[in-house]
C-alpha cells in the first residue's frame, strides 16, 4: 500500500502514517459497529448516529490519502446514508442498520486487501454501493 503521490512524505514517513491509519481504521470499524447496534436499540440516539458518521467520514478522507479509491468510495456511500440519518431526512430502520453493518464488513475487507484490492467498486461491492444509494431514497 502506498500513499498518494502528493502528500509530501517520504517512504519511511508514509510507513509511520500508514500504521496509524490501519490502527485508526480498525478502531473506527469498532466504533461504527458499536454505534449501529446502539442505534438499532435506540433509533433516536443522536450521539450514536453522529459517532458512526464521524468514523465513516474519517475513513473516507484517510482512504483517499492512501490512494485506496474503492475503500474511499464505499466509505463515502456509507457516510451519505449516515448524513441523511443524522439530519433526519430518513429514519433509522432495521433494514438500514443491517445494510450499514454489512457495509462495515466490506470496508474491513477492502482495507485488508489494500492496494491489492480493487481500485474501483466492482461486482458485489458496486451492488452494495447501489443499495446504499437506494436506502437514501426511501423515507
Amino acid at each position, binding site marked *: 500500500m502506498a500513499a498518494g503521490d502528493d502528500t*509530501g512524505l517520504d517512504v519511511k514517513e508514509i510507513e509511520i502514517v500508514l500504521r496509524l491509519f490501519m490502527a485508526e481504521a480498525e478502531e473506527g470499524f469498532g466504533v461504527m459497529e458499536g454505534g449501529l447496534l446502539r442505534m438499532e436499540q435506540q433509533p433516536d440516539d443522536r450521539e450514536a448516529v453522529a459517532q458512526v458518521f*464521524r468514523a465513516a467520514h474519517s475513513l473516507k478522507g484517510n482512504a483517499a490519502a492512501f490512494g485506496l479509491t474503492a475503500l474511499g468510495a464505499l466509505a463515502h456511500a456509507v457516510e451519505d446514508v449516515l448524513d441523511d440519518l443524522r439530519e433526519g431526512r430518513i429514519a433509522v430502520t432495521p433494514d438500514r442498520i443491517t445494510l450499514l453493518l454489512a457495509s462495515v464488513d466490506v470496508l474491513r475487507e477492502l482495507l485488508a486487501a489494500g492496494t491489492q484490492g480493487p481500485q474501483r467498486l466492482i461486482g458485489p461491492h458496486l451492488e452494495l454501493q447501489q443499495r446504499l444509494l437506494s436506502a437514501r431514497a426511501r423515507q
Partner: protein
Amino acid sequence: MSRKKILLVDDSETVRMMERIILGKAAYEVVVAADGIEAVEQAKAEKPDLILMDLVMPRLDGFGATKAIREDPTTRDIPIVMVTTKSEAARVEEAMRLGCRDYTTKPIHGPDLLAKVRALIGE
C-alpha cells in the same frame, strides 16, 4: 528568531501525524488538538501563529470552534485555515463567513498546504 507555531486540529490521529510531519520538516513548531473544545483551549494557552481546523469533530465541530476563537479577544486575530474534504466544498463559504482566512482540502497535499501556511505567516 523563534519558530512560528501552528495548532493542528483534527480528530484523526492519521491526519494530525501527516500534517505534523509536513510542517515539522518545514521547521514550524506544532501543537495539536483532537476536537473543537481542545482547539479553543489550546488556542488560548498556546497562542499559535496559525490554526489548521478540521470541520467534522466530536464535542465541538470546526465551525463552533472557529466562532469561539473569533469571539475571544485574546485569540480573535489568529488566522484559521479550514481543512475540509472535497465533498464539503459547499461549506467553505460558511467557514469564510465565520472568519477563516483560507481553506484547503483533504487528502492533504504537502506543497499546497505549505504554500497556504507560508502565505499567511511566512517561513
